[in-house]
């Protein structure tokens, strides 16, 4: 192989990297600033509405892994009362098939993705833990009504925040810095 191009190729390549030195870094400084996720995000949890659920177990049947454990007994008004509704989020692959299958909109994907735990047991969510709360919000996956109420996703394609993109600080200096644990 000859160096027939006199190193022009290398020079061009070096120029490209040099140009990038003056471009804004695309980094999101995660713990302090967070991306707005998709409105249809399938976060790493499920949200269950006990009032809407009839205990029909369609979700459990549609789950590819049989991961939803549901136990019911017949109540006094000839309805099913849910005794146990348990999802092992350490096993669920968040495919969303259960949410799509639910005929009463009683199950939704959650938004949050920060669900790391120190203990394996903490990943198994009981029916109390699965309910709607401050930290457990439903996403718009297969739920168009919720979807419409969520903020727009921040996209990397739009470089400016005004257009709906993520914020880029040109110099990339860190202004916000938490205690950093």
């Amino acid at each position, binding site marked *: *192989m000859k*160096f027939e*191009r006199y*190193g*022009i*190729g*290398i020079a*061009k*390549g070096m*120029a*490209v*990297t040099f140009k*990038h030195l003056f471009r804004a870094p*695309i980094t999101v400084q995660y713990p302090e600033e967070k991306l707005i*996720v*998709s*409105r*249809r*995000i*399938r976060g790493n949890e499920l949200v269950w509405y006990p009032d809407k659920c009839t205990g029909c177990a369609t979700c459990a049947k*549609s789950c*590819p892994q049989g991961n939803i454990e549901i136990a019911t007994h017949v109540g006094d008004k000839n309805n099913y009362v849910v005794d146990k509704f348990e999802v092992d989020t350490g096993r669920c*692959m*968040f*495919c*969303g*098939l259960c949410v*799509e*299958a639910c005929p009463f909109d009683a199950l939704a*994907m959650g938004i949050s993705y920060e669900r790391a735990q120190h203990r394996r047991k903490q990943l198994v969510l009981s029916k109390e833990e699965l309910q709607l709360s401050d930290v457990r919000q439903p*996403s718009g*996956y*297969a739920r168009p009504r919720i*979807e419409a109420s969520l903020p*727009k*996703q921040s*996209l*990397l*394609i*739009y470089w400016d925040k005004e257009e*709906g993109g993520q914020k880029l600080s040109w110099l990339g200096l860190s202004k916000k810095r938490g205690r950093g644990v």
Partner: protein
Amino acid sequence: MAIRTEPFILNMGPQHPSTHGVLRLRVTLDGEVVTDVELVMGYLHRGIEKLGENRTYAQIIPLTDRLDYVASMTNNFAYVLAVEKLAGIEVPERAEYLRIIMAEMMRIANHLMAVGFFLNDLGAMMTPVLYMWREREKLLDLFEMVCGQRLTYNYMRIGGVSHDIPEEFLPALKRFVAEMPGFIDEYDRLLSQNEVLLARTKGVGILPKDTAINTAASGPVLRASDVKWDIRRADPYSIYDRFDFEIPVGTVGDCYDRYWVRMQEMRQSVRILEQAIAQLPEGEACAKVPQLLRPPVGEVYGHIEAPKGELGFHLVSDNSIAPYRFHIRAPTLINMTALKDMAIGWKVADLIIILGSIDVCLGEIDR
């Protein structure tokens, strides 16, 4: 002139930087020259084929995501096409277009990774990967927008796609399509004429045309060896016959050609995306399909041109809700057959870039 030394066996992998996962190579070396390669795989064998026999047709779709995890959308695509062929299901027009858009976006995303990690194997200290990852990140944003996940999409359904696209999707995609050729040009400037890259890849790991055909190599590996065979053209599935695009082919089949073919295919994919966006019709995104599909007894082999090569699904139905037999024709597994021909006589460093130029994905090889 070469100093002959005693051969020794080097065990590369299963945890090695350049095996793109958990591939293991038993390399017999003479000095630094490779005299024999034995592939040991199965370190990611998850038994997807067996699991598929116990799941309904719809429940298999999430599993196919995890085959070639760099290009999950095309796996979905190939699978649903095979099932639709088996059950004879008509797909709405809009869904067809959406599928094509997703598949071509996926192809760009995959080739970005293939080229980037190929450069990483060449030792370019992550920079090309990170530039290309930036573009891939944009695509992942779009995928996330339509189906809520960044990597395992579970988007296609038998008879269409799971959701119609949100209204902010098309403007963003148009912007991406407009910007992307500029970025590809930039990568071209960064890489394509770089003397070091040329010196490392030109003439290295040549796969002759007849060997490529005999080993049933597919995808960019086959096309780099000057075989104009692209299933999108040779056996048009879905609505690929409506688009105008070229099939880039290489000349000799060396690592540079494989790299070059991937770069060109990205440009062609951008072209297809442009046309698909322009032609996208209104309508339903999914046909009415019974939740528990029971296809008639029979068997079908559906194949598509996945980014890595010919991805085929061989399904046998016994008219139950789960397939009787579910076989995946994984492109990279079969592309690997030719690795030995390409690698013997080259140095360890070359073996690594040859492996990188095949663009392996272990999820698909081992299934």
